[in-house]
């Protein structure tokens, strides 16, 4: 058994080195495929992050009539708190709203002077509602509109937000579908590439394979060097892809971090998940490679 394993490894390495150019071209094609898949994965992560950022910015503001009492506002707050899907509620009183307004327009003396001319505070008290997920907003809005507390509300901005919410939800699902579709296309491409590479390798070793079969080598022994060669190709391609990917990450990280205003760094994310990425990269490449080579060699041996 041990002798068989050592010989299989030797034959696989020989196959690789004696057809060096074919091996180099295959590794190059595999790097292209795995790199494309890795980039699709990264774009998915960045896309999810964009959606997450938008989600964080989306909220519903409920503006109360001036006549609504403090108790009614607290009841409204308690009701909203009890709804499933509500993550966070922020109450802004009339006085706080005025303070915030002044802070916001501190550099605009015209607005501040016109504000001081008013005898009373015209800004309403409000409740800002944030949902756990973007999909929860429609349900929260429906539940609130059906409740008696909706009568305390002078105006809301949920009709504006509804359009954004719907767009973001659609975008989330579309991005996922597109990512999945693109990944699937690349998986098919890599299967075809590896399948043909192993077929070419088998063809270039057809004499050895023929003699192996003739002198009574088991099918396992005939198969094993080719399968091992495909593993070798996958490992080399994965190492190159990961190296290139990290070079690319270093180069693009400042731009991506700036885009997210320092809230998200793709390099930090990938470093944090390095073992997961390595496992997916190697596992995926080896799985694809072995499956394709098994199909190729089984088809050849059946002839």
């Amino acid at each position, binding site marked *: 058994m041990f*002798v068989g394993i050592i*010989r299989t490894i030797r034959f696989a390495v020989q196959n690789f080195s*004696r057809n060096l150019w074919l091996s180099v071209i295959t590794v190059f094609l595999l790097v292209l495929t795995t790199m494309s898949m890795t980039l699709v994965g990264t774009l998915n992560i960045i896309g999810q992050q964009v959606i997450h950022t938008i989600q964080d910015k989306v909220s519903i503001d409920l503006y109360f009539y001036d006549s609504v009492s403090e108790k009614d506002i607290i009841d409204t707050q308690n009701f909203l708190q009890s709804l499933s899907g509500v993550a966070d509620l922020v109450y802004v009183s009339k006085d706080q709203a005025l303070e915030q307004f002044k802070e916001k327009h501190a550099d605009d003396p015209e607005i501040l002077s016109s504000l001081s001319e008013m005898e009373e505070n015209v800004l309403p008290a409000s409740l800002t509602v944030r949902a756990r997920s973007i999909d929860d907003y429609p349900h929260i809005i429906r539940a609130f509109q059906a409740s008696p507390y909706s009568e305390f509300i002078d105006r809301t901005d949920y009709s504006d937000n509804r359009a954004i919410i719907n767009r973001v939800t659609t975008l989330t699902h579309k991005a996922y579908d597109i990512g999945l579709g693109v990944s699937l296309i690349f998986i098919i491409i890599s299967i075809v590439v590896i399948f043909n590479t192993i077929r070419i390798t088998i063809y270039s070793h057809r*004499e050895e394979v023929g003699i192996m079969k003739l002198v*009574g*080598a088991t*099918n396992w*022994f005939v198969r094993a060097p080719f399968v091992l060669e495909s593993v070798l190709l996958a490992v080399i391609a994965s190492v190159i892809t990961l190296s290139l990917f990290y070079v690319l990450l270093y180069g693009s990280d400042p731009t991506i971090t700036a885009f997210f205003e320092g809230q998200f760094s793709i390099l930090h994310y990938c470093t944090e998940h390095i073992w997961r990425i390595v496992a997916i990269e190697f596992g995926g490449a080896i799985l694809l490679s072995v499956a394709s080579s098994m199909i190729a060699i089984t088809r050849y041996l059946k002839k």
Partner: protein
Amino acid sequence: MITFEHVSKLYEDGTVAAADLNFTIEPGEFISIVGHSGAGKTTIARMIIAEEKPSEGRIIIGGWDISAIKRSEIPVLRRQIGVVFQDFKLLKKKTVEENIAFALEVCGAKRKKIRKIVPQLLRIVGLEEKADKFPNQLSGGEQQRVVIARALVHRPKILVADEPTGNLDTITAHEITDLLLKINQLGTTVVLVTHNPEIVNRLRKRVITVDHGAVSSNKKTGKYTL
């Protein structure tokens, strides 16, 4: 013992390569299968090594019905039957010694066993001095000797030689035939497939003549009569 019982082989295009073949080859026998090109000689050789399966009938080798042999069992059969072809089928990038050793390596033989067997086989075929040469540095006869040595690595009970002298001149062909006779004398059953009348007549051994897939004659000390 090799037994053909009502063996027929019909290809998908309608070609009849074997038609109701019935014969037995005794252990230790030297038998020549002769016939014109396309008569079905090679099909018989290929069916013995399970490269082809009969469409009808049974082929029994040493009590084992190989007509319905499973794919996983073929390597076991091939280790009991040595095969020699006209076109040598040697690996050009390997030396004589490596070509012979390759057949043992791929079957999982230990290095110690390989080191012991390969020189013995080189001695039998008379190529001790050429162990380090590559196939393209050898003559046709020498290449065929390497093939014979490779066919003997598993000490097979049967040796199937399909046109082993087809690419050789008369003198070299006689040398190869003599080598096959020597192997036969050591106890191996030899099945020689040929269309060379001179070789067959010189051997004075049993001859089965095949014509259009059927046995037209089967003589104990036969001659090439076509």
